[in-house]
């Protein structure tokens, strides 16, 4: 293997000098490699750490906040949810199938490392727009890769989102979220505990794949990125499944003191992380690590990102039992070192010391950069864009165009490639409600999950867009009947060294923090993915929110389908006619501009409480929030799902009709309810101080919308359904 310079490993001259100062000498080649991966953005969060401190992370429901492999929230009865979202963007850009598959494998390991059995997967994907062969290739590969890993592991993939936009061309985003269920007394943490404890590596053997993956993930993509294909790991879900079953057996038998998965930066990172938690040191002998290739140098063993491996610190005397369990599953379990008390990360190759650095220098010692933030030129220009310049499109034609937009159309082409039913808990299936709902066997409880981010809004106004992402996630969960508990986020941005990008990060994080505080949904885990840029520029800032909720009674839930002829349709929340950042402007006018509709956190909070109450009292027959495409799309989707039409009568009072139909202003939900329940509905809306207006009725075979008694839309549900259902399939042909 050709030797790399420290610069090629991603270290700056300044950082290299810092390392020399710490060691009091020149680092050797292995030590340089160890520092370079530990000090990469991916492992060390050196550009994002100061900003991340702003997130609220506490609450009575939080059992474990950021800092572990995943966050943990209490759901009562001695049970907790363990969850996290993580990116695998760069590998997927180069090798979509394996890149996405190993992204799923990695996030699954993060969850069962905590002792939890994974119960659901979600994802959030972004691809380039337009008719582009590479986009189709990436989408096919990523979806197949996600399915390959998750389906084989037997973990249902129950939800997610996908958007297409030119800024992701060449730099797609692949974020995978996993949720696990654990007994609160069985939560495992990554702690190196007692001095003298042995350290075991378990699972697959170590090969040469994925060396420097973490470094690769922390740089911009370029023409040369294809040469980094060896940095992309190769996944084996069968091995992942065996590893999961074996690890969960260890937890059940209480055999482990600490467990840490081998993800980014492999053995190096997992050992350093485990040791640093209690200020311990470690000594490992690389010659003992089981390998699948010959003649591997210590450097390669320490930096390999071979998949399906785990680090285990056994309880004293448990080694033999651990080996027996792994033997049952046909996997290796090998002691490779010990926890020490000297605070040193020491790597041996049999008898000789090949690396010796202070543990803290690798973790806490990672440099932190507060970058310069500068408001980009576009911000003011877009914010003050004069909507009067935009002509009104024909409402019916616009609705059809929006239904056919891949950003709005049915995602069945994608989710039908994922097993979303295995484990027999999925009660609201993908596409049927605003969030996925799963039952918890043996209880009355249900849980709901969603991932959300409208990155166009974040781009136009990072603060409002950041709030919007959190609010939409919470609203989606409330619509199915869930009480939002906490969130995880995946912060996908461009190069933070560029002041405009850093400005986006700073404001988006501030917005998310404000909303998370107001809605009492603390951030318990997350991941940062920076340098999402190609020569064409940065991606839209995409801080994806993954949120979880609890349904105290699984029978009290709601989906989005209109149910019954004669039911009344109402909009809850303050109706506004704002078109800034809407899909309508993009699809019908080719514009991505405008003032982003402002979030009102007080109103949002009241709305969420009202909607939860309505579902709990089973007053609503359907519940669907207004988001991409506006009210017209929300109504059309409820009609398509219910296979029944609706008759809407509104009055724009001279305001823009397209604003009325297609505004994506947050804080609004469309519900349908029986006439006999209207009285109670009004009473509750008044109690919660939420605006409410009745806009029409369910029934017939058509979606009819009248403005001031003039019919502006009349589309058969059948036709709407055909356009909406087949759009992505047509896009893929």
């Amino acid at each position: 293997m050709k030797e790399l310079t420290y610069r090629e490993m991603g270290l700056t001259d300044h950082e290299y000098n810092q390392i020399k100062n710490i060691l009091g000498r020149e680092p050797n080649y292995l030590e340089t490699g160890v520092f370079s991966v530990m000090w990469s953005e991916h492992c060390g969060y050196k550009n994002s750490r100061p900003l991340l401190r702003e997130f609220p992370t506490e609450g009575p429901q939080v059992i474990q906040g950021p800092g572990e492999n995943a966050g943990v929230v209490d759901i009562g009865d001695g049970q907790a949810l363990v969850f996290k979202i993580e990116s695998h963007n760069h590998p997927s850009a180069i090798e979509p199938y394996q890149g996405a598959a190993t992204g799923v494998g990695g996030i699954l390991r993060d969850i069962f490392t905590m002792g939890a059995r994974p119960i659901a997967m979600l994802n959030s994907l972004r691809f380039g727009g337009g008719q582009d062969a590479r986009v189709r290739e990436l989408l096919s590969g990523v979806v197949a890769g996600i399915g390959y890993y998750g389906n084989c592991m037997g973990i249902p993939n129950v939800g997610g989102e996908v958007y297409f936009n030119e800024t992701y061309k060449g730099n797609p985003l692949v974020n995978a979220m996993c949720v696990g269920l654990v007994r609160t007394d069985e939560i495992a943490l990554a702690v190196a505990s007692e001095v003298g404890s042995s350290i075991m590596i378990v699972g697959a053997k170590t090969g040469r794949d994925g060396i420097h993956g973490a470094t690769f993930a922390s740089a911009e993509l370029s023409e040369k990125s294809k040469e980094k294909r060896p940095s992309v790991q190769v996944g084996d879900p069968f091995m992942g499944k065996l590893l999961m079953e074996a690890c969960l057996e260890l937890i059940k038998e209480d055999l482990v003191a600490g467990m840490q998965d081998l993800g980014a930066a492999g053995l190096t990172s997992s050992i350093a992380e485990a040791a640093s938690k209690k200020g311990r040191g470690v000594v490992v002998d690389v010659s003992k690590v089981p390998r699948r290739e010959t003649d591997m140098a210590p450097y390669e063993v320490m930096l390999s990102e071979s998949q399906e491996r785990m680090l285990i610190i056994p309880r004293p005397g448990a080694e033999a039992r651990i080996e027996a369990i792994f033997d049952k599953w046909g996997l290796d379990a090998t002691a490779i070192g010990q926890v020490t008390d000297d605070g040193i990360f020491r790597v041996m190759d049999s008898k000789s010391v090949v690396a010796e650095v202070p543990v803290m220098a690798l973790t806490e010692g990672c440099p932190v950069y507060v970058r310069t933030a500068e408001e980009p030129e576009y911000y003011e220009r877009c914010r003050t864009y004069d909507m009067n310049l935009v002509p009104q499109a024909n409402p019916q034609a616009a609705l059809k165009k929006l239904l056919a937009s891949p950003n709005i159309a049915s995602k069945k082409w994608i989710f039908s490639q994922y097993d979303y039913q295995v484990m027999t808990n999925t009660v609201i299936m993908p596409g049927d409600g605003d969030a996925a709902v799963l039952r918890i066997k043996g209880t009355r409880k249900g849980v709901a999950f969603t991932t959300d981010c409208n990155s166009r809004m974040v781009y136009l106004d990072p603060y409002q867009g950041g709030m919007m992402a959190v609010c939409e996630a919470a609203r989606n969960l409330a619509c199915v009947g869930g009480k939002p508990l906490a969130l995880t986020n995946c912060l996908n941005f461009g190069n933070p060294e560029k002041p405009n990008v850093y400005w986006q990060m700073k404001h988006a994080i501030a917005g998310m923090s404000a909303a998370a505080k107001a809605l009492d949904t603390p951030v318990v885990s997350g991941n940062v993915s920076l340098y999402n840029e190609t020569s064409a520029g940065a991606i839209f800032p995409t801080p994806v929110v993954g949120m979880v909720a609890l349904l105290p009674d699984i029978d009290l839930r709601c989906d989005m389908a209109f149910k019954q002829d004669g039911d009344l349709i109402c909009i809850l929340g303050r109706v506004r006619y704002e078109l800034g950042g809407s899909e309508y402007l993009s699809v019908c006018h080719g514009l991505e501009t405008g003032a982003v509709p402002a979030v009102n956190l007080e109103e949002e909070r009241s709305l969420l409480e009202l909607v939860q109450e309505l579902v709990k009292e089973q007053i609503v027959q359907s519940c669907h929030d207004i988001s991409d495409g506006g009210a017209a799309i929300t109504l059309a989707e409820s009609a398509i799902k219910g296979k029944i039409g609706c008759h809407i009568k509104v009055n724009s009072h001279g305001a823009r009709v397209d604003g009325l139909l297609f505004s994506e202003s947050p804080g609004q939900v469309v519900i349908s309810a029986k006439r006999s329940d209207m009285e109670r509905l009004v009473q509750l809306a008044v109690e919660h101080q939420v605006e409410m207006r009745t806009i029409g009725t369910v029934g017939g075979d058509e979606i009819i919308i009248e403005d001031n008694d003039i019919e502006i839309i009349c589309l058969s549900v059948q036709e709407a359904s055909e356009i909406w259902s087949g759009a992505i399939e047509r896009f893929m042909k």
Partner: protein
Amino acid sequence: MKFGVVVFPGSNCDADCYHVVQTVLGHEVDYIWHQQASLTGYDALIIPGGFSYGDYLRTGAIARFSPIMPAVIDFANQGGLVLGICNGFQILLEAGLLPGAMLKNRSLKFICDKVNLKVKRNDTAFTNQLRVNEVITLPIAHGEGNYFCDEETLTALRDENRILFTYCNASGNEGVEYNPNGSVANIAGIVNRQGNVLGMMPHPERCSEKILGGMDGYSIFASILQSFQEAGR
């Protein structure tokens, strides 16, 4: 009645089948680890879905060499009831308990969906709670469910009335457009000559409870219980 659910490395619907037998049917059930070599005291076996041995080489091709398989074959040959679901069906094919082979889906993609099935016979241990030509809805989730056999075998399957389920539309009409994977003769499930071994691609264990959106799968398990009772065992 006592059920056994055979677990191979990579099985992933084992817990779902176990749950249905124990919690929904209220009967006794054990997991049977693939390295066990004998089977005693079971009235019915379920070979669950999943990706045994990662589906490496060919679906079911490695599982059929597991130590438990000779015992499963003996159990079947002695008339014991064996239900192979999805990967379980694939294993039964590889083990020679059922004829034919499985190809990749026509679309070359994994498919998770709900499909309509037509019940072709109700005089079996697996369908006595259903009506002939009744249309039932069951979930599918597979990448290789494109059942294939040669003409001769197909003729035999037809002549011997061994096709239990075919893919169809909501009104019971069969046709390529209602066949999700391209299987020959729209086959979704077949039995052996004696009628005690069923292999099927759809997952009855995923719709045996109202909360999951359907009870059609329950009818298949209820049929097994009924036939066991009738046999007076």
